[in-house]
């Protein structure tokens, strides 16, 4: 079982590095990180009278998994939109890998290695799932008009891409849907496709907007393993999520937004016991995180029961 190994390993090189980087950081909003991949300054976006985003200063550590949480309407999606060029900020500036990114059109942002997914999914309905995936790959030779006319120029690359896509689809349990139109996927499957497609880009920073909302928990769990793998491959992950179990499980650092502003930052454990966060966001219910040992114990228990049952059945 995928998830299990990672959950238990927990101490892989990268994770350790990430944790080490965060270790001595102050728990203040906007705290500088040792090696930020994304630095944001004073991004403001207003809709009429409503200030949706007003972020003073935020940094995202390279090679980490950072969670962005906050109540509904806090401005998380809008913030993503600004950063990735899908909406123009009223003011502010941000750099990605040291490059200023304000005013850069969305496709250039994506090409420079910063890819996002959409909360309300955008499946390319009349393309098959496989075509959706292939589209994600970058620097395809066949995407040039003239080269497209000579299939031998791009066939080889296409095969590679397909292989990679197949791999991802298997992980995301979409392999059976490979040749179906993306428009025929269920809500959760679309989420999965959205994320898998973004990973086809092989970005440096992947920004996931509620990737697991509506995804079956068992699958979520196995996908978390994959996300952790991404970190192992050196990718940085910034994700929005309301599923606290997931946040707790995989994030190295948590940024909390409320009413457009960053109100708190810190490691998951600390953040979830932060009074303000509980108040504004978590509510009463989520203040008791499960320890990892407890979790595994439960899993073992279930597994044992399962095995017993299988035995029972085979004996019959």
């Amino acid at each position, binding site marked *: 079982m995928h998830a299990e190994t990672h959950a238990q390993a927990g101490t892989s090189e990268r994770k350790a590095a990430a944790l080490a980087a965060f270790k001595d950081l102050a728990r203040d909003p906007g705290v500088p990180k040792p090696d930020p991949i994304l630095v944001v300054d004073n991004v403001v976006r207003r809709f009429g009278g409503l200030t949706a985003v007003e972020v003073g200063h935020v940094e995202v550590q390279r090679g980490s998994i950072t969670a962005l949480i906050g109540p509904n309407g806090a401005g998380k*999606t809008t913030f993503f*939109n600004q950063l990735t060029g899908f909406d123009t900020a009223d003011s502010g500036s941000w750099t990605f890998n040291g490059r200023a990114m304000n005013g850069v059109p969305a496709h250039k942002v994506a090409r420079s290695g910063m890819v996002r997914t*959409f909360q*309300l999914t955008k499946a390319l309905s009349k393309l098959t799932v496989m075509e959706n995936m292939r589209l994600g790959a970058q620097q395809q030779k066949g995407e040039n008009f003239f080269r497209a006319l000579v299939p031998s120029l791009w066939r080889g690359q296409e095969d590679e891409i397909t292989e990679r896509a197949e791999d991802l689809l298997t992980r995301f349990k979409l392999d059976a849907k490979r040749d179906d139109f993306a428009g025929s996927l269920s809500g959760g499957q679309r989420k999965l496709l959205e994320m898998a497609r973004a990973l086809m880009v092989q970005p440096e920073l992947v920004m996931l907007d509620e990737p697991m909302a509506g995804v079956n928990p068992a699958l979520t769990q196995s996908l978390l393993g994959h996300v952790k793998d991404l970190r192992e491959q050196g990718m940085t992950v910034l994700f929005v999520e309301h599923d606290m179990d997931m946040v707790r499980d995989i994030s190295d650092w948590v940024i909390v937004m409320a009413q457009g502003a960053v109100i708190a930052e810190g490691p998951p454990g600390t953040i979830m016991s932060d009074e303000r966060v509980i108040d504004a966001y978590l509510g009463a219910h989520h203040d008791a995180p499960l320890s990892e040992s407890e979790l595994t114990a439960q899993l073992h228990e279930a597994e044992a029961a399962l095995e017993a049952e299988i035995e029972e059945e085979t004996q019959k």
Partner: protein
Amino acid sequence: MRRAVIAFTAFLGGLIFLLAGPAHAGTADCQGLKGTLKLQGQPVNGAKIAVTTESGQPVKEVTSNAQGTWDVQVDKPGKYKVTLDVSSLPKNADVRGGNNVRTPTVYEGNCSTVLFALQPKGAPGQQPADTDGEITFWEQAAQLTFEGLNLGLIIALAALGLSLIYGTTGLTNFAHGELVTLGAILAYAFNVGFGLHLIPAAVIAVAVAGVLGYLQDRFFWGVLRKRGTGTIAMMIISIGVALLLRYVFLIFFGGQNEAYAQYTAQPGVEIGPITAAPKNFVAMGIELTVLIIVGIALLRTRTGKAARAVADNPALAASSGINVDRVIRIIWASGGAIAALAGIMLGLSQSLKYTMGQDVLLLIFAGVTLGGLGTAFGALVGSLVVGLFVQVSTLWVPPELKSVGALVVLIIVLLVRPQGILGRRERIG
């Protein structure tokens, strides 16, 4: 005081023209040039006129007789030069435009008339037309603005029908022009065919068109929707419907222009800087009223809101307890009726032809789009802008290109506001 007198005489001078003798001079016996000289309605006697060939060879010199007429017969057809001796004119007379030489052509067996328009001397400016009932730029602009509103409101009405149906069903109905024509022709049938006065005829026509709109959805579009026909397929189907209807009209109505039995060529009345027929004002009043009522109904009434809800998401509307088919049928009925009213108004202000709707369809689409697709007030605003630009742009561009003016504006506005004037941008993410 003196200035006023001069201005007055100038005015009279402008009115003077030169009347040729009755034009029934026999055809074969005339080959040459002729004319009549008159000053302020009085014939001018004794004015000298010299005719030469094009190259300057003198042909003949004549003087005008007591009726002011003169006549030169020539042997050969061709170009000639006619010069009026200004000094032989009465002291107070002057040739309008200053030029006393004409170069007419004489054709075999025909006489050509030559005109020297005379005016009293001292008339200010060599172009007396300037003062002669001429209209200032601003008066013209005012008239054109009025015409723009007039046309814009008719378009708006047609556009509203289109917008309603597009808004609720997503159907880009290329047969909408034919619905407009239908209304006009129905009213014509009741008006001219059954001899009703136009007003009751129009009322009946609108009602019938509403029923037809209802039936159209009940037995055609609704059935297609139920079969799951896509909007693009429906759009092409609407092209088919447009062809079908248009040529049915051609068969029954014929290819010619027709007019209603009443209010045709109603003389205009002057109101301030503009001249317009009373029917225009009544029509505009009706149009505006209907537009506002429907617009408000869409915003305020339950059915109006339901219509917008159906437009957004029919499945969810049904889940909320809205009878989607019923709402769509109401919209089709009112859309059809409104389109018909637009057709009647168009027929009233212009005349009827089987392609009348098709001919304005582009403007209708332009209006709807400019205002923002699917919004009722957008259709109004967009259409008014289109109407205004069609008319007012003729101050600068030749009228044959007047639609170009409006279409360019459409493109420019959409450049700045891709979602139309009243449209709203979609949120991403």
